[in-house]
């Protein structure tokens, strides 16, 4: 209803209904200037400050990203270098192990050769000792058997008359030794 009433303004009036009053323009203009001035004084610095802070934060983030990137690149370089070191260390360890294995093998061979020589010498000595012992035992056994045989032969030879003669001989010899 209002719109209809606005459209239905009287054309005879001096000022168009769409234009404000001069005083309103003045007041409005002053108010607008005050508002713009206030905005310029208070809002623009805050906005600038916020914008600067945001720029600074973004810059910091960019710097941090750049730092992270360089750090990551350094780490990557270090890792590559470490990988290289590991390879060289691996090669060195393998070389050491091979050298030690070769030394052990040579030492083992030398010791084995010495032990074989020692065992051979001991076996030769044992064989010689056993032969000597066998010879001694044989000699002793022959002596023992010879003794037994001699005893038996003499016992068979010593008949009663010989025994009596030996007794009489003993008595006579002891008597003669007075």
């Amino acid at each position: 209803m209002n719109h209809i009433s606005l459209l239905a303004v009287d054309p005879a009036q001096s000022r168009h209904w769409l234009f404000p009053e001069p005083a309103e323009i003045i007041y409005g203009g002053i108010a607008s200037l005050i508002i713009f001035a206030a905005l310029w004084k208070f809002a623009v610095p805050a906005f600038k400050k916020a914008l600067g802070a945001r720029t600074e934060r973004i810059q910091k983030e960019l710097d941090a990203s750049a730092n992270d990137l360089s750090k990551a690149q350094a780490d990557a370089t270090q890792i590559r270098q470490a990988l290289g070191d590991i390879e060289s260390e691996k090669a060195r360890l393998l070389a050491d192990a091979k050298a030690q294995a070769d030394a052990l093998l040579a030492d083992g061979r030398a010791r084995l050769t010495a032990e074989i020589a020692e065992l051979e010498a001991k076996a030769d000595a044992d064989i010689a000792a056993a032969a000597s012992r066998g010879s001694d035992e044989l000699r002793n056994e022959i002596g023992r058997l010879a003794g037994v045989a001699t005893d038996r032969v003499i016992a068979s030879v010593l008949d009663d008359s010989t025994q009596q003669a030996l007794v009489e001989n003993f008595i006579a010899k002891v008597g003669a030794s007075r």
Partner: protein
Amino acid sequence: MSDNRIEGYARALFEIARAEGNIDTVEAELYQLARAFESSDALRSKLTDDQIPAARRQAIVEDLIGATAANTTVQLVSLVIGSGRGRDLPAIVDKLVRRASSSKHLEVAEVRSAVPLTAEQQSRLAATLTSVTGKQINLKVVVDPSVLGGLVATVGDTVIDGSVRTRLDNVKSRL
């Protein structure tokens, strides 16, 4: 066993035999038994085996010499064996024989022979040893086949060796 105990047993056996009035017979029989004890491993092991009861060992002694030896001899040997002194029987008997000989002012002469000696040979041998040593001799003859031939006489610390065994051993050692 200590020498004191052996001496004690010898003195006791000697006094018993002397009290019984047959010291010469007992002494001679004990001497022969002691030599048999020394030479026979079987007899020695039987009479010294602690696993065999004393009564059984004494019965062995009586079976062995009961029929031939004097009753006093059997009783004395049974006493020694029954008291578990069988191992010392030869030592006890030797002390007893020395004590018996000393009581008669005699020196014990042990003669080992391969064959038994006649009484006449023993008498001549005792006379010869008496004249050589200057002591009255109580001759104890032991038949020892290991002598082979001849005699070995031991009077105190003196040994007169005329055995074939010793001559043979000398020849063997020289060889």
